[in-house]
């Protein structure tokens, strides 16, 4: 920055180093941008706040520039601190920031490195222009302490220093941090500090930083480091549980050796995947689910065979997803195809316990889920092959179940078709919506009723010594049922409920020519 005042003659190496650091740019780590954003935010805040506070003077303009520059510098300084690599730059910066001032200047200078960022912060916060003016030379002359600085600030900074020291003592294995007054010891301690991993130096490097930063830092660094570690180790885990069975299988084999059977089964799975239809395996995305479903639905025969061999692989995802049963159903691709079948098998277990194949399949899956995975992956393919095929074939056929069964159709379908007429009448009579289960109940009820009806008619006709059921028997039945009473006769009912054609058949009526129909 050329537009600076030339510093005082008592330039310390600190100032020189700082200038060096500020002028040159460093690499661009990830976090720098976030810090840059923070810096930009602070930049935005500064002009606004300062505008509010001060009048428009040249000082204001200059202050803005200085403040921005200082903030940018601060940002850069912070970014340097964010760097994980131990570069000479970071080391020097750490020295600058962490080590207490070892200059010959007054004891206030001890707090100097802390002051620089703090002054920037205070520049945002200070309301009086005078203090800002005072601070401007402070920014430029870090070596000289402006008298404008409040003594309380010093004490605060000293407190912060002590806090920083405490942090250092806590974190550093080498607890060589002196109270921070001795030059050489401070330098060495700073060197020691600089060798500390960057997170610690980061948090150590900002003891004097004002109120906002420390809130962020300890969280950011730790979380970021953990995130880095997590990300480096597990690439497939973020968020998607669906992809764990497929994605983590190869990664697990490579990265995590926690599971003893991971590798051989991975090998099996890879072989199986090759044999499986390629689209289902190649795409490891969510679309694979659709493809897998399609392939499962269309190429059921093909996949049945594949599913047999891939049953060995299912133990792995099953073992992993055991605590997460819904994810089994949502697994991707071939896994999904297999697991869909097995899920169907399990569901079929629930639905049709009578099926012999599905319990066998379930038993096989449970066996596979146990420890002996690689062995059983090879052995059970043949037996579940037979078992799986039957329930699998019956699965698509299960939906149109009634049409396929030829035997009971002869009895049931016309009977039910006939009864449906009365069921419609039922729903018509109720004038209310009726549930399907209720309709089924009505059907059963009607069946029982017909049974009773036939029995009664048989009894009545047998009582009369006939083998034919006549109208008298029917009337007797209606009377016994209470439908026909002394007040309500049969004819009344007939006239009420039956259409004209039937009425004429039932109620004798006189016709011309002295004839009665029906004939009595």
């Amino acid at each position, binding site marked *: 920055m050329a537009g600076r005042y030339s510093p005082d003659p008592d330039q310390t190496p600190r100032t020189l180093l700082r200038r060096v650091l500020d002028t040159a740019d460093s690499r661009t780590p990830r976090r720098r941008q976030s810090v840059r954003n923070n810096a930009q935010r602070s930049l935005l805040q500064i002009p606004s706040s300062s505008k509010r506070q001060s009048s428009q003077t040249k000082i204001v303009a200059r202050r803005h520039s200085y403040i921005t520059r200082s903030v940018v510098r601060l940002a850069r300084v912070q970014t340097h601190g964010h760097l994980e690599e131990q570069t000479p730059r970071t080391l020097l910066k750490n020295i600058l920031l962490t080590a207490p001032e070892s200059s010959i200047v007054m004891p206030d200078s001890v707090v100097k490195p802390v002051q620089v960022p703090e002054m920037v912060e205070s520049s945002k916060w200070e309301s009086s222009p005078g203090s800002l003016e005072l601070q401007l030379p402070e920014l430029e002359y870090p070596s000289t302490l402006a008298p404008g600085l409040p003594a309380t600030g010093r004490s605060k900074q000293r407190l912060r220093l002590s806090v920083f020291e405490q942090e250092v003592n806590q974190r550093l294995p080498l607890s060589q941090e002196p109270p921070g007054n001795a030059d050489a010891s401070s330098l060495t301690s700073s060197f020691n500090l600089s060798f500390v991993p960057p997170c610690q130096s980061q948090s150590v490097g900002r003891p004097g930083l004002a109120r906002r930063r420390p809130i962020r830092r300890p969280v950011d660094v730790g979380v970021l480091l953990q995130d880095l570690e997590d990300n480096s180790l597990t690439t497939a885990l973020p968020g998607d549980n669906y992809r764990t069975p497929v994605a983590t299988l190869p990664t697990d084999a490579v990265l995590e050796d926690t599971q003893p059977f991971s590798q051989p089964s991975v090998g099996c799975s890879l072989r199986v995947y090759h044999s499986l239809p390629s689209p289902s395996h190649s795409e490891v995305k969510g679309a694979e689910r659709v493809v897998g479903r399609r392939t499962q639905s269309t190429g059921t025969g093909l996949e049945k065979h594949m599913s047999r061999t891939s049953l060995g692989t299912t133990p792995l995802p099953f073992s992993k997803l055991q605590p997460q049963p819904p994810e089994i159903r949502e697994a991707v691709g071939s896994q999904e195809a297999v697991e869909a079948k097995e899920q169907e098998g399990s569901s079929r277990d629930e639905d049709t316990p009578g099926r012999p194949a599905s319990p066998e399949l379930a038993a096989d899956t449970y066996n596979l889920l146990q420890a002996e995975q690689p062995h059983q992956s090879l052995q059970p393919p043949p037996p579940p092959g037979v078992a799986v095929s039957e329930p699998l074939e019956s699965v698509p056929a299960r939906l149109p179940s009634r049409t396929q069964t030829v035997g009971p159709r002869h009895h049931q379908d016309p009977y039910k078709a*006939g009864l449906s007429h*009365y069921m419609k009448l039922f729903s018509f009579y*109720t004038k209310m919506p009726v549930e399907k289960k209720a309709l*089924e109940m009505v059907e059963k009820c009607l069946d029982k009723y017909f049974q009773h009806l036939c029995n*009664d008619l048989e009894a009545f*006709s047998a009582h009369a010594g006939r083998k034919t059921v006549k109208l008298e*028997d029917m009337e007797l*039945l209606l009377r016994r049922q209470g439908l026909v009473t002394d007040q309500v006769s049969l004819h009344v009912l007939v006239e*009420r409920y039956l259409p004209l054609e039937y009425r004429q058949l039932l109620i004798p009526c006189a016709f011309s020519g002295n004839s009665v129909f029906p004939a009595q």
Partner: protein
Amino acid sequence: MAVSTVVSRRVKRKAPRAFLRRTFKQKKPHLRLETACDLLIHLNCLLFVHRLAEESRTNACENKSEVIKKDHVMAASKVILKKSRG
């Protein structure tokens, strides 16, 4: 009783005579059915269904549900079947 109600959807008044005769024959093959008896059987069925529907509707209204549910029908059927035994 208002028999001639306004029918929103066409409910066929035809009696399933063949169905009734076939059912009776299946159940009681040794018996014969007279000419118009199946009409009376049909009438009997109509009345039965009517009573069942009324009872189910009453049960549903008692439970303050707008839909006739299975338990309503079950309770109704118990009553009506008991009534209908000859």
